[in-house]
């Protein structure tokens, strides 16, 4: 049974992550990642999608993540200029592995995206590896797995999940 205070610390970290993204404070958000990080979103038809073998929606390392953030901050990321409104609900947080260096976490999410007269939720779960760093955590592995069968209402994954 993992320490309940560890779960509270992880939850606080995930709430901070959600708030930074909902407020579009992308540079502050980028600081939550390690230099050896990965951010992966598999396709909706293959939740187990592995970027080394399969086609996925997103497979960013730190360099590509910086590229994604740079793009989203520009006035020319047309799908997100002006920015959409988002509201992220993160719940059902479970610690699945714990070591002195890292914590593995599973959590559920619903992210509403509101823009241009439409509101569409992205529903899914996170598979995370958090690196312990001084006074908190950083994302080493962030995998957002969607439950929808297609991007029927969304057209794209234009925000960060």
């Amino acid at each position, binding site marked *: 049974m993992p320490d309940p205070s560890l779960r509270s610390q992880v939850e606080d970290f995930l709430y901070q992550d959600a708030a930074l993204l909902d407020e579009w404070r992308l540079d502050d958000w980028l600081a939550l990642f390690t230099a050896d990080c990965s951010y992966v*979103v*598999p*396709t*909706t*038809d*293959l939740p187990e*999608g592995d*970027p*080394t*073998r*399969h*086609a*996925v*929606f*997103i*497979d960013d390392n730190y*360099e*590509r993540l910086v*590229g*994604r953030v*740079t*793009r989203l901050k*520009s006035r*020319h*990321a*047309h*799908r*997100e200029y002006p920015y959409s409104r988002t509201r992220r609900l993160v719940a059902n947080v479970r610690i699945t592995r714990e070591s002195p260096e890292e914590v593995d976490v599973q959590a559920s999410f619903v992210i509403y995206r509101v823009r*241009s007269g*439409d509101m569409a939720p992205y529903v899914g779960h996170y598979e995370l590896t958090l690196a312990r760093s001084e006074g908190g955590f950083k994302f080493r592995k962030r995998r957002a797995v969607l439950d929808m*069968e*297609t*991007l*029927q*209402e*969304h*057209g*794209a*994954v*234009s925000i960060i999940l």
Partner: protein
Amino acid sequence: MDVHNIVMDDPERGIFRVHRSALTSDEVFELEQRRIFDHSWLYFAHESELRNPGDYRRRTIAGRPMFIVRGKDGEVRAFLNTCTHRGALVCRHDEGTAESFQCFYHGWTFNNRGELAGLPGSDAYAEAFDRRELGLKPVPRLESYRGMYFVSMDPGIPDLVTYLGGLRHYIDLTMDSAEALGGWEVVAGTAKFTIKANWKLIVENSLDAYHLPTVHQTYVDYMDTRLEAVGASRMQMQSRLSGQSNGVSYPRGHGGFLHFAPGRTIANLSPLWSESAQTEVTRIREELIQRYGVERGSEMADRSRHLLIFPNLLFQDSHTGFRFRQIWPVSPSELRVEQYDLVPRDEQPELRSYRLEWSRAFLGPGGLATPDDVEALESCQKGYGARELEWNDLSRGMHRQPLASDEVQIRGFWRQWHYLLGGRPAGSEAGDRPPAPVPVHA
């Protein structure tokens, strides 16, 4: 708007316009279903998805539930996915391998050749009940070309090779280019997304090289940043390959644009790749030239092909990978995309990962480009709500041998569309023909 006048095609003055009701009207939508989708060859699946007996794929083609399966006898067949008894779907997974398909409603069982193999309580039927007549209904036509299976609802449609016509030249270039690497195979992970826009807008968009610097500026900036980080530049890369980029249009609405683009894993270099990857790409390129000669081999290696197989299959072989992008109309203002990436079966893992990286980076729902196309198309569709402005213009390059960034390939699509809807008299323009072979420099 009368369908006869819905396209304004005036090659003499160099003016081509499409009435916006073509993109908004319910009547046009219905007409398209009956006159285009019921009488075209429609892509269904790739042979790599049906390698072994029993392998199947379930897809919705032209609004019909269907599945395609390799039978125990090795033959590939496409069936309407509906039980001949009372109608329930007999194939209930998107993919798999099966010896038979049992309807879960009353238990009628069909083997993977489509025959009705068994049904519970068969003694309840009279003598005239002939189970040989109650096999699964095959799709009227099924044919394949270079590993691509197509179906048609029209029993009288010309054969697929005739249908594809001159476009086969470009299909062959891509298919041949992977022969020495084990041929192409579909990689798992399909991008399925919906756009609130008319289906023809993404056909246009996928054939449109004019919008690249405007819509995709952030992608271009990203490329530049990556290249600068390794001391290279796009200009430098581009100058290594010289050659003409152009648009092509073929009879029956097929066409596309072709351009010289560096960074293709088959087969020209990118400064972003490791030394071992460069060595392998150089080897592949030399092999292509040895096998197919300098002209054909370097065209395979250097030229990206963004093609439309009329009416709804984009065949895209570029520096961002090779994919089939299939477009389905949902309503006059909604379309669905199914996008399949293909990879050479025996491609080195390192090259495979570069290929998939650049495919994702550009042309996928999570990439740095496609989301902005989605925004552009939805924005156009919204704009059509202002009904007092009636016409779209597609006249670029009508007075000259068309460049890739001209619109001849889009006009070719619309001309065939208009013809099939019953509106277009015969007529063409200079660029609406295969161009003379383009000189290629090694």
